[in-house]
């Protein structure tokens, strides 16, 4: 009964979404306020219905209803409750339902925080988001119904993919989708602006907080996925340039470009059509990512169940949404004009260069991801593109973009002078260069790549300090706290996010430069010394888990004879599927991790004999995720800026009457 209720709610949601995507749009075109006023209630009703559908699916999972195919295929009665609930979005159908839920949620959020938007603009935004929602609901109902019944019911479920039975995996998809789908808001704002023919600074100011929040979520989502890969895949890697990772990374790069380009459009009125294009591209890449992951056109370690019929549907949808938007862009953007003029040396130029580098980097990732598919489609053979390509192309493109991060925030808008920039930044530059040249000697061996990486990180840090110092020195306020408070949260958010990049680069550089990886075979009681740490293997013992059998090893970590930590790496064999999973044991430290994971016993099934053990030292690896979280935090701090809310308050008075009317219409 409950699954049918969920299914019914989805059908209703589709009908409401159709209303939401057509009538307000028509109202905006015809200037009919009553049609436009439908936007808010329709969006909220759709959100409610999708929540009901999602709750029904979650209940089906929680109550082990194996008469639902999706539950039977992705859950198991032995699975602990929190993973049964997480299994709701563990399957293809469930994750699409999550996508739809997020989209409806973002739309609903737009209806809540949009008092200041002109009604016609809001109607268009909500209609555009409704159109996207219609596509996803159709996709759910026609090709991927999460509520399909299984006749006769299965006595037991097949279990959730063991790799997904992990706390990181429980929150990684929702975070990632919050980001992916969040770009739909910027997209809808851009389309609405193109439709209305009004592309100005206010449009950019409205889009900025939405874009930044979505970007922050995406950053956290990607970081969580990377962290998960680090501790569960058992080989200590944190990024593999896998097509599915790239699918999330491309919208991130574009989103980063979009955030910066929106700043220019808001502050200076420049880059208008470019910003609109970026907003369209960021969301298009989110859709493309969904297509790549769900259609099976590329091979990936994320082997999700794939189905060509679904691929055809998503591709058609992608073609309509993106093709339509780009056609609209081609038709309208020429009339928008380019906006303000600026000098060759100016903050605009720095941001433009940063944008171009980010987009070229994104295009190179896109090319690398799709290259195997291009060759195959042209009958030129089967190849796979791996880390060597991405490493060779990506770092040289991003290094200048990172270098510009030191200059851009210091440069004046419109016209800056190189000599004055040099005067202000020379000490920051000198300190960064000297420290980058010397530091590698103290850390171990010196190599040009390590020095270059450290230079970029230090350069961001030192130039940020100079930037803050100049700001405080030029402030008219007295007292250090007053001076600090005089700057806007968006300024501090920017500094924080940039420092996040520096922290991230330190992590990447040092882990690539100094990591030590050893695969050894250890008998019980044997030692291995890696990088000054002594690892003593004390054997394994079997033990039961809730839905798996585990083999847990014990490894003592010593330095200079002193016991630092006892680690327990695990291997789990899941009862339902028989699949094995490795849980690495990590002694986490700010200066580096000691990472131990169990391989296989040397002789099959002889648990008490020798084991293959991987012992890794990963210096500064946690800085990678720490940096990512700082970036996301910076984004959230920036959004708290009063400027975005001031715009609300200023317009609030005349709008109150209108919103009161809308509220009573709810």
């Amino acid at each position, binding site marked *: 009964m409950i699954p049918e209720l969920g299914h019914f709610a989805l059908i209703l949601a589709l009908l409401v979404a159709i209303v939401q995507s057509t009538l307000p749009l028509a109202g905006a075109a015809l200037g009919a306020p009553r049609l436009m006023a439908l936007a808010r209630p329709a969006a909220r009703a759709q959100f409610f219905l999708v929540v009901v559908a999602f709750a029904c699916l979650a209940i089906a999972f929680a109550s082990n209803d194996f008469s639902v195919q999706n539950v039977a295929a992705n859950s198991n009665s032995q699975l602990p409750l929190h993973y049964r609930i997480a299994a709701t979005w563990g399957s293809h159908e469930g994750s699409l339902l999550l996508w739809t839920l997020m989209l409806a949620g973002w739309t609903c959020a737009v209806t809540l925080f949009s008092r200041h938007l002109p009604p016609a603009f809001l109607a268009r935004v909500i209609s555009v988001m409704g159109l996207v929602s219609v596509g996803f609901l159709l996709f759910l109902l026609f090709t991927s119904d999460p509520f399909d019944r299984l006749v006769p019911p299965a006595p037991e479920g097949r279990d959730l993919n063991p790799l997904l039975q992990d706390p990181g995996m429980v929150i990684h998809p929702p975070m990632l989708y919050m980001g992916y789908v969040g770009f739909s808001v910027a997209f809808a704002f851009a389309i609405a602006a193109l439709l209305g023919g009004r592309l100005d600074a206010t449009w950019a100011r409205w889009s900025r907080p939405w874009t930044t929040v979505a970007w922050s979520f995406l950053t956290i989502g990607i970081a969580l996925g990377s962290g998960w890969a680090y501790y569960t895949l058992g080989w200590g890697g944190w990024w593999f340039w896998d097509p599915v990772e790239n699918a999330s990374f491309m919208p991130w790069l574009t989103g980063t470009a979009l955030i910066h380009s929106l700043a220019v459009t808001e502050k200076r009125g420049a880059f208008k059509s470019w910003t609109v294009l970026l907003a369209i591209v960021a969301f298009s890449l989110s859709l493309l990512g969904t297509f790549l992951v769900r259609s099976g*056109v590329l091979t990936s370690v994320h082997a999700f169940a794939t189905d060509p019929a679904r691929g055809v549907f998503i591709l058609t949808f992608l073609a309509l949404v*993106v093709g339509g938007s780009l056609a609209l862009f081609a038709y309208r953007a020429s009339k928008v004009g380019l906006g303000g003029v600026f000098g060759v040396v100016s903050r605009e130029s720095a941001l433009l260069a940063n944008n171009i580098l980010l987009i070229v980097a994104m295009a190179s990732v896109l090319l690398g991801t799709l290259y195997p598919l291009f060759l195959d489609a042209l009958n030129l053979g089967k190849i796979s593109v791996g880390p060597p390509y991405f490493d060779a192309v990506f770092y040289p493109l991003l290094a200048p973009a990172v270098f510009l991060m030191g200059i851009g925030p210091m440069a004046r808008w419109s016209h800056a002078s190189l000599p004055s920039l040099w005067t202000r930044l020379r000490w920051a530059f000198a300190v960064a260069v000297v420290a980058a040249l010397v530091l590698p000697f103290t850390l171990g061996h010196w190599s040009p790549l390590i020095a270059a990486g450290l230079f970029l990180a230090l350069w961001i840090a030192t130039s940020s300090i100079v930037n803050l110092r100049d700001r405080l020195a030029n402030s008219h306020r007295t007292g250090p706290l007053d001076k600090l408070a005089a700057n806007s949260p968006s300024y501090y958010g920017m500094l924080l996010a940039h420092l996040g990049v520096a922290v991230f680069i330190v992590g990447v550089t040092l882990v690539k430069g100094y990591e030590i990886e050893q695969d050894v075979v250890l008998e019980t009681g044997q030692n291995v010394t890696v990088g000054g740490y002594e690892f003593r293997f004390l054997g394994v013992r079997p033990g039961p888990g809730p839905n798996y059998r585990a083999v847990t090893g014990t490894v003592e970590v010593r330095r200079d004879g002193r016991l630092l930590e006892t680690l327990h790496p695990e291997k789990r064999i899941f009862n339902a599927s028989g699949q094995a999973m490795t849980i690495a044991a990590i002694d986490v430290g700010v200066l580096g991790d000691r990472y131990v994971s169990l391989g296989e016993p040397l002789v099959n099934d002889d648990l008490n004999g020798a084991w293959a053990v991987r012992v890794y030292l990963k210096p500064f690896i946690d800085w990678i995720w720490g940096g990512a979280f700082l970036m996301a935090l910076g984004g959230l701090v920036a959004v708290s800026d009063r400027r975005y809310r001031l715009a609300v308050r200023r317009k609030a008075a005349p709008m109150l009457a209108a919103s009161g009317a809308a509220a009573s219409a709810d």
Partner: protein
Amino acid sequence: MRVLRWTIPFGIFVVLVAFLWVGLSRDPREVPSPLIGKPAPTFRLSKLQAPGETLSPADLKGSVWLLNVWASWCVSCRVEHPLLVQLAQENVVPVYGLDYKDKPDDGRAWLAQHGNPYTASIVDRDGRVGIDYGVYGVPETFVIDKMGVIRYKQIGPLTDEALQDKILPLVRQLQQ
């Protein structure tokens, strides 16, 4: 020309969609084998269940047969094994097994435990025949025609779909 500039993103996207469209009809996991259409590499190996006797592709000339590469240590082989057992019961086509890089004792124990669908299995202890056949990973299945020519190769476990849609129709056609 100035207006044309704005249609560039659209143009790029159209090309991209065209490629994605073609990509949909391809299977990225399907690796073409250069051996298809070539005579099956020859060998003479002893049989697993009767170590005194040997088998060579030459002995099987005149009949259509399947060569299934398996091993007791191979986990995915357990996935496809029920299909092979079922196929053997239907008696449509003889299936010969190539026990790849395996100890004969382990292989025999494995067949005793999971059932033996093979007309005969031969032992490729050091995997040399596997190299001749371009074995990527176990399991793999070859369809070999009456003339001893390889006509099809399945990489990875057999699926019901592959069997019904590709292998069995091909076998029937070749048997005529």
